[in-house]
């Protein structure tokens, strides 16, 4: 973007409008939280939580604390572990179901029966099954992303324009070549969408899994942003709860955006519209 309209973008009317609402939101939060101190009457809901300024101060304090960054690192590790496993298993599974009719009729009904079970319902079973807590959280994270990736890949591969396949076959392409240079690239955009959404879900799951298993009385190393939030709650430091929430929000947003950009690189032809 050329220099001039970058500047316009920043100070453009729409951008400013967004800022105004956010500032008003923070003001309401600040006044609402401090209301009891200033006027003695505690407002419902907002009165019970710490004001943004206190949250920022606590956050400042935490920046130096390695424990805080350690929970980032642990959560990221679990998310990536579960997510990459979901990609490695989910994408071929989805593609093979789309390409091979019998495999689809064999496995898709079973997949559809298991899908409505929310991933977090697997936490207790996963804790029993897997030896370490790390593995049990990673398994649940894997499940969270797996369903989304498979559905998107299957949908994408199924909706390929039939004539691409017919054109390729009639030019003497082998099954493998049709898969490698027609089916796979045509499904790539849906893989990117599926993984971006899947990534979002892994963050949802990891937080809960860390909370439930960490806070669920099983003790153990715990760790991770989910545990950090739960621990702050148990420890009574409410400012840290909100710091934890914002941190996970940033981490989730950042990883999904990174995936979308990576996706953009893999599918240059989409940008030429």
């Amino acid at each position, binding site marked *: 973007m050329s220099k001039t309209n970058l500047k316009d973008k920043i100070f453009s009317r729409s951008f400013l*409008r967004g800022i105004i*609402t*956010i500032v008003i939101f923070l003001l309401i939060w600040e006044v609402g939280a401090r209301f009891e101190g200033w006027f003695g009457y505690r407002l419902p809901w*907002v009165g*019970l939580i710490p004001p943004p300024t206190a949250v920022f101060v606590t956050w400042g304090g935490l920046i130096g604390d390695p424990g805080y960054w350690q929970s980032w690192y642990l959560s990221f590790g679990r998310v990536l572990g579960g997510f990459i496993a979901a990609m490695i298993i989910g994408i071929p599974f989805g593609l093979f179901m789309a390409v091979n009719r019998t495999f689809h009729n*064999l496995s898709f009904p079973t997949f559809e*029966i298991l899908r*409505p079970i929310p991933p977090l319902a697997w936490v207790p079973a996963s804790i029993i099954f897997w030896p370490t807590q790390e593995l049990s959280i990673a398994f649940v994270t894997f499940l969270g992303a797996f369903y989304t990736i498979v559905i998107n890949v299957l949908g994408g591969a199924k909706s390929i324009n039939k004539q691409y396949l017919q054109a390729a076959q009639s030019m003497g392409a082998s099954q493998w070549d049709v898969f490698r240079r027609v089916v796979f690239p045509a499904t790539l955009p849906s893989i990117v969408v599926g993984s971006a959404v899947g990534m979002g879900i892994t963050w949802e799951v990891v937080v809960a899994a860390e909370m439930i298993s960490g806070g669920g009385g099983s003790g153990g190393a715990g760790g991770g942003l989910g545990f950090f939030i*739960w621990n702050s709650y148990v420890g009574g430091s409410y400012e840290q709860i909100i710091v934890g929430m914002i941190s996970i929000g940033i981490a*989730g947003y950042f990883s999904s955006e990174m995936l979308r950009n990576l996706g953009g690189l893999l599918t240059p032809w989409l940008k030429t519209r």
Partner: protein
Amino acid sequence: MNTESLQASEMTGMALTMYRISTWIKSPKPYLMFMGFGLMLGLWYFTVEVWKLPRFEDMPGLTEVVTEYFSADPMYGTSIYTPEYYMHIGISLRRIAYAFFLATALGVPLGLFLGWSKKFREFIFPLFELLRPIPVLAWVPLAIIMFSGSETPVIFLTFLASFFATTLNTMLGVESIDESYSRAARCLGANGWQTFRHVIVPGAMPYVFTGLQISIGVAWFSLVAGEMVSGQYGLGYLINTGYIMITYPTIVIGMITLGVTGYVTSALVRMAGDFMMQWRVRELALGDN
């Protein structure tokens, strides 16, 4: 020209379904489907109860769960005969109903306005996008602090998950309505409000219902977590106590029930959608004419 759809379009509803069932039976699909189920259950049965593989042996076995689930006086107190089982289901469904309808009542209008008026979107959407990435479950401690009792936090969490999904999908729906519809309405003399009522709302309906399907799924997702962490009753709680009290078959019973109720509720949403949008149902049945 897809001859399959040409053929489908010329048959009445009933004959069409009969025809589809007859071809389904003749095709290998049902047999492969049951083979798939058999494979899954077989694996579960063999790994846990017959081969007793490491890690698998402490899991509840297939026969153990089935006998528990269908026995008149179950060892661990939960089976299709015990009233607590239905109480848990009832409470979970009630929470889902509250949260889902509240999220729809607030989310759909907000989504419609966000999609319809550019000014409104410029003000509100950035804040919405700031809060959306925060995982719903990260709100658990805050929900417990903000809301007294154990019922409201769980409903709040389920509501939040649904609300974000519904609003976003409705907004995207309004934006993908073909611009020529609202232009045609303006040409025909409709003012802004009339165009909103006669073009934007009906035009966005298909997208709203896709959004609602996602939102009911996400609602179950957060309800379970909420119930596990802070609920007194409900299926999530049932599963969690199953773990804490080492009554493992109850965990699996809880999971199966969640699967079924989740499937049924999203099917209900789909049916409501078809009912509300007759024009779409009849158009799709006719294939791509």
